[in-house]
Structure formats: structure tokens, C-alpha cells
């Protein structure tokens, strides 16, 4: 039995294309443009025109924004099977960030006109994209609700409670590991604010912060804070 081409193996990892059969994947594959970048090479600049959707075949890139003062903030690091630059394909805007290769990287570019054509001709892809975008929208709606109605300490408490409740339900689930930066992204705040929130929860005796561990001392009181 022939192995699926490497490109189809990568495409299968992309949620938008996961429900396609082999024929459908082949139709996507024939529209892909393969591009290679050495470490440090810029794939596209923030504010530039959108070329299409990118899929990482191999390597890693950082996606970052630069402030007016020249300070950089990394938004994500994309690895094999991940996609980036979806949004400007659909809203007609410019690239929202800059993408730069962290190591020798091979990308598949699905040009914008081909992506839009595929969305029209492959309902499976259209539904999958809507599902993913809806999930993002739901997440952002929940974040807006949290930002509007909960203070930071309450939002951090909610994150911690969700983590331990998930682990409590399934004994096979390893205790989750979160960085304060990840908690900050989930809570819609800055990392140092999360640090202060954890200290506040510790002072209340609800949690105990140890080296590499946050121990929930009182789940009931944590739930009350949420």
C-alpha cells in the first residue's frame, strides 16, 4: 500500500481538512505552493497584503507584532501541522502580524483565491472552518463575559478550578501544567497581574504556590471566589 504523500499527511492534521476524503485532500494538495525559508527569513510582514493561508510542513516560525517603540511581542510559535494567517483571507484586511522562520522551515501556501474557491466548492471544508471559527468566537465571548463581570483574581480562580475539576473527573489525565503567561492569555490579562492574583489567592489560604506547583488547598472556597 502506498503511503500518503507527505503533504496529505500534514493536511490531515489541519482541522479544516480533517474530514476530507483522499480525493478531497488531493484537490487541496494540487493547489498548494511549497515554500522554504532559512532561519531568520521573514515569510510576511505585519500590514502587508495577505497571500493566503499557510500550513507548516516542517520547522517552526514565530508570529509576532512590533510596537511603535520597536518592542516585539510573540503571539504564537507555529509548528508542523499548524496553520496561520487565516483571518485576512476572509475579511480583506492586511496581515495582522509578522511571521519569521526560527529554523529551516517548509511551508505550504494555499493562495487566497484558491482558499476562497475551496470554501465554495468543498462544503466539508466550509463547515469545518465555520466550526473552528465558531469555537474561537465562543471562547472570545466567554472571555468578554469574564472581563466584564469578573475581576482578575476571580478569572484566575476559574482557570485553576477548571484545571483541577478536569483532572478530578478523569484519573488518567495528568495534572495540567500552565505557565503564568498561559494563564494570563486565558484570563485576558498581563502575566504580572496573574502573579499578583496568585499571591492574593495564597494570602486567602485558598491555594499554596510551591516550586513548579499550584496546590489548591480549598476547592470549595476557590469555587466561591469564581
Amino acid at each position, binding site marked *: 500500500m502506498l503511503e500518503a504523500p507527505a503533504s496529505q499527511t500534514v493536511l490531515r492534521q489541519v482541522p479544516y481538512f480533517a474530514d476530507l476524503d483522499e480525493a478531497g485532500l488531493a484537490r487541496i494538495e494540487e493547489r498548494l505552493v511549497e515554500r522554504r525559508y532559512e532561519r531568520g527569513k521573514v515569510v510576511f510582514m505585519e500590514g502587508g497584503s495577505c497571500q493566503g493561508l499557510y500550513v507548516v510542513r516542517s520547522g*517552526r516560525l*514565530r508570529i509576532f507584532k512590533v510596537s511603535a517603540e520597536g*518592542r*516585539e*511581542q*510573540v503571539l504564537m*510559535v507555529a509548528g508542523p501541522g499548524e496553520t496561520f494567517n487565516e483571518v485576512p483571507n476572509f475579511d480583506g484586511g492586511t496581515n495582522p502580524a509578522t511571521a519569521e522562520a*526560527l*529554523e529551516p522551515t517548509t511551508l505550504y501556501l494555499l493562495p487566497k483565491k484558491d482558499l476562497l474557491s475551496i470554501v465554495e466548492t468543498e462544503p466539508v471544508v466550509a463547515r469545518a472552518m465555520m466550526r473552528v471559527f465558531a469555537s474561537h468566537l465562543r471562547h472570545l465571548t466567554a472571555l468578554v463575559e469574564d472581563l466584564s463581570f469578573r475581576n482578575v483574581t476571580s478569572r484566575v480562580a476559574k482557570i*485553576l*478550578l477548571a*484545571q*483541577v*475539576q478536569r*483532572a*478530578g*473527573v478523569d484519573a488518567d489525565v495528568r*495534572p*495540567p*501544567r*500552565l*505557565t*503564568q*503567561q*498561559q494563564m494570563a492569555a486565558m484570563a485576558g490579562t498581563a*502575566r*504580572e497581574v496573574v*502573579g499578583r492574583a496568585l499571591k492574593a489567592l495564597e494570602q486567602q489560604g485558598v491555594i*499554596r*504556590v510551591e*516550586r*513548579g*506547583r*499550584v*496546590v*489548591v*488547598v*480549598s*476547592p*470549595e472556597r*476557590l*469555587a466561591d471566589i469564581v
Partner: protein
Amino acid sequence: MTPVAMLSGQCLPTIDVELCTGCGDCVELCHAGALALMGGKAALESPWDCDYCAECEGICRQGAILCPFEVVVERGLLPKS
């Protein structure tokens, strides 16, 4: 999955050398003196001095330093759903 570094069973910050630009902000910030620039990149020169305050993670603009925390319940307790 968030990577984890250990020394004698103790958690340590992980530093992604591909993301590190060698700016030195973390080295300057580290009150324990555990970090240094080695070969132009940040590294844990004295890991035994690190107290895992996780401030280095916050100062790094590149997201190169990670200090993950395991979230667990005190032994013997089970949170209600």
C-alpha cells in the same frame, strides 16, 4: 505540551534557544543570579540557585523562557463538579 526541566527532582525554567535573542533582560532581572548569557544565549548557569520565582518568564519578550506550574488539589481532597 509545555516542556519541563528538572534538577534533582526540582522544576527549573526551560529556555528555548531558538527563540532567545540574547538580549540579557532575564539575566539582569534574576535576583538569584542563576541566569547568564552563554554563547550569546540565556542559560541557567547556576540552576541550584534558582528559586523558580518565574519572573524571567515575564520579562522575556520572545516567550523563550517557560516556568510551568502543575495545578493539583491538596492530597485527599476532590473538588465537586
